[in-house]
């Protein structure tokens, strides 16, 4: 019985490996492999534009995974690898856009909108606070003028 459970678990483990898209060999250093896994989830597959390099099974994504693999092996930092890919494919390859003059509005918009909303809310609350309190009367009483 125990053996059967073990066999099933082993089969499930193997099955996920068969399904894996990325067949780049793992890096020898586990910490570096973690960085690799983080990086391939940061970049867009340029051919199938809503997938990450990690999720995509097209040839170019595999090439770029291998490229990242080799850059890591060559001792490049995460930021150097980002620069490397942006220099070739542009900001679009990053799922999380960098903060620069062109993307400033993108980063600032949520904050600005929040401030505008707060401003409107405060104004409305202040106006309400300034209104005389008139509804002390029971609800069905006739309004007095």
């Amino acid at each position: 019985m125990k053996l059967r459970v073990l066999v099933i678990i082993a089969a499930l483990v193997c099955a996920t490996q068969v399904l894996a898209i990325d067949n780049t060999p793992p890096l020898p250093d586990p910490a570096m492999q973690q960085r690799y896994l983080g990086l391939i989830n940061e970049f867009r597959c340029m051919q199938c534009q809503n997938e990450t390099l990690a999720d995509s099974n097209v040839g170019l994504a595999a090439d770029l995974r291998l490229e990242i693999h080799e850059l890591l092996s060559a001792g490049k930092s995460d930021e150097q690898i980002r620069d490397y890919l942006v220099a070739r494919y542009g900001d679009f390859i990053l799922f999380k856009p960098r903060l620069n003059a062109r993307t400033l509005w993108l980063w600032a918009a949520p904050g600005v909108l929040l401030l505008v909303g707060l401003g409107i809310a405060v104004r409305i609350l202040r106006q309400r606070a300034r209104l005389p309190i008139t509804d002390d009367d029971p609800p069905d009483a006739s309004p007095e003028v």
Partner: protein
Amino acid sequence: MKRSLWPLGAFALVVVVLAFGIFNAPRNGSKIIVSPLLGKLAPQFTLPKLIDVGQQYGAGALRGGWHLVNVWGTWCGECRAEHDTLLQIKQQGRVPILGIDWKDEDAAAVAWLAQLGNPYETVVADRDGRVAIDWGVYGAPESFLVSPQGIVVEKQTGAMTMDDWRSKFLPHLGALAPAGGKGGA
């Protein structure tokens, strides 16, 4: 009065933002991405030639004259659609075309050129796609116009038509009459 204008103002703002988005959207769909390579030096590379087997095409070769660099592959349907345009550009004789055969089988590429005609001055084989990464290629066909100083001045992503060639690329090459124009008279 002032209060009643609030929703109208908000609506006008939304209209302005959406109109900006619509009028600035690229015409041939959202897939066109401006290459960061434009205005920069073309990447250096050395690759084996496809037809003159055993020879290398070297780093500094894209200097001293205009070059059109075309990335293609026999597996690429759009490349077949583009092939006639490339043959016409070759006929015009304004600029030599360097073909980068991207992640392809040499035999298939040679057969393709024999069958459809060869528009290229030189074809190099980028078998593992390394050079294509340096050029920021993400979907064949892609074409780059490289100046005599080695600067990438224009790029076409996807199949080039003669209209694209005339409107985007030819103006960079100066006001010389196309072959067969002035020269014939």
